């Protein structure tokens, strides 16, 4: 299955959003979106992934 994480396409066998984040080593204080919609941390374990899904994993950053 091909998915995109933070703009980078990659092969993945992850069944859920939580598994994909673990595979990519994305831990700590992050927020996630799947295909442009926010997915709360509490729903990552139960959010299934499909071929072509795009994940965004965002972290705190400097801002004005």
């Amino acid at each position, binding site marked *: 299955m091909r998915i995109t994480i*933070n*703009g980078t396409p990659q092969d993945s066998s992850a069944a859920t959003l939580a598994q994909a984040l673990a595979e990519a080593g*994305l831990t*700590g*204080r*992050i*927020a*996630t*979106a799947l295909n*442009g*919609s*926010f997915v*709360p*941390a509490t729903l990552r374990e139960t959010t299934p992934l499909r071929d072509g899904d795009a994940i*965004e*994993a*965002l*972290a*705190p*950053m*400097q*801002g*004005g």
Partner: protein
Amino acid sequence: MPVFYGTTVDSALMLGTAGYPSPKVLADAFARSGAGVATVSLRRESGGGQDFWALIQSLGVTLLPNTAGCHTAREAVTTARMAREVFGTDWIKLEVVGNTDTLQPDLFGLVEAARILSAEGFKVFPYCTEDLVVCERLLEAGCQVLMPWGAPIGSGLGLNNPHGLRALRAAFPDVALVVDAGIGLPSHAAAAMEMGFDAVLLNSAVARAGDPAAMAGAMAAAIRAGREACLADPMERTDMAVPSTPVIGRAFL
């Protein structure tokens, strides 16, 4: 001191966290500024996010996440929802970019996003222009704070339309008003406070100064002076001279 959504903030200076030469310079600038609020953002995690989180935790300030870089209401709403979870606050500086050259806000998208987010319980700080009608719409959408620009973000031009900003203050005497963006010098910040604005939000003027900590101190002093001047009820301006030395008793020479 400014009150935002019922919360009193210790300082009328709100300071951004972007563009400093190093984390230490950022921390020193915040210490000198006495700022009560720090703006932050969300970006794709590429390794630095967790260290930055630790740094801003140590500043002891209230966090105001932004939706910088969003070009549609939908993007801004999603970013706000993500920011609420990451930063643990329902405060959001709402930015919907309308023009890439001036970074001026898309006011239509801004009102749309403000309505959605206010309904979801967010406390929205909209980055807007000084347009009176748009500001009315933002208040109707649920905003209790308005943040009109002084000038384009990062330009350092100061207050481009002082008449418009003064009119906004007069139109909404009970709404918390913040001049956000365009400040380059302490005199710009002081001018906004003299007009009766509740606070000033700035970033580049400090971060891009040769000595950010010293500039942060200068901004804090200017904002205090401007606020005190406003409370002191400045004199009326006149176009003609008015002698300050008494005319009566003048010698006849």
